[in-house]
């Protein structure tokens, strides 16, 4: 039996928004607002998005990737729980993600906000355990497909 390996990865994204912290925070707290920037996108159709913005509340979403993306036709599902909320300052969410019905990662998503001069600085820290082990045919297949897609785009751009 092969050992299932987890890999750990942390990344940080710092952004400054031209809006007071209360407005930025509202974009995370209000389900309709959050759906607009968080769930909607050109690469996928939103099949489900629901959230209860309170500690212990859940956030559930499901997306179907459109053709031409790294995972065309594949269902991506995220399921999480709000662990900490400090109005205007901090949101911490723990979330798992599945692709094609297979759970591939668990992540702690921390959003910290600070306001200065009408702007809001946000630091997003994404700490994840990826469950993809030494053998993950579906994911690897998606990886190959992505590589070929990138290659084709690269070659088309050069032509």
């Amino acid at each position, binding site marked *: 039996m092969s050992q299932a*390996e987890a*890999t750990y*990865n942390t*990344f940080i*994204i710092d*952004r400054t*928004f*031209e*809006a007071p912290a209360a*407005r*930025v925070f509202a*974009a995370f707290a209000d389900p309709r*607002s959050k759906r*607009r*920037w*968080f769930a*909607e*996108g050109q690469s996928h159709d939103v099949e489900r998005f629901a959230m209860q913005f309170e500690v212990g509340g859940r956030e559930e979403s499901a997306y179907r990737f459109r053709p031409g993306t*790294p995972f065309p036709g594949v269902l991506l599902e995220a399921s999480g729980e709000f662990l900490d909320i400090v109005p205007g300052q901090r949101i911490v969410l723990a979330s798992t993600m599945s692709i094609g019905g297979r759970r*591939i*990662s668990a992540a702690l998503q921390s959003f910290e906000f600070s306001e200065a001069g009408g702007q809001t600085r*946000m630091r*997003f820290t*994404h700490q*994840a355990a*990826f469950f*993809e082990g*030494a053998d*993950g045919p579906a*994911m*690897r*297949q*998606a*990886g*190959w497909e*992505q*590589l*070929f897609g*990138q*290659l084709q785009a*690269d*070659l088309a751009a050069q032509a």
Partner: protein
Amino acid sequence: MTMAAATLAAPDRVDGIFAALGDGTRRAIFRMVAEGPRTVSALAQALGVSLTAITQHLRVLQGCGLLHTRKEGRVRICEVDRQGLDALEDWIAFNRQMWERRFDALDAMLREEGEGKRGED
């Protein structure tokens, strides 16, 4: 070292992979081997090229870590090398890009709202 760490430590590797796959014959070889292990002679036969030519292409594909070969008795078998392209690494990059895109959308949304508010005043 994990595969992800190996990929992060060697960004040039991706260039090597793209360079290797910039050739039609090597793409054909890689596609075939990605479907399952193939012998060198089977590849040569399927693609209608000489063993010498196949060997040269395989050297390039091995050099960037896309394939590896092993000897089984008197035949040499080509297999996909998992270190070459790390789907996990792609996934991490994809995840980060997804968040970058989300925050771009948030930024645009906040600006739009801001303009709307100013318009109302």
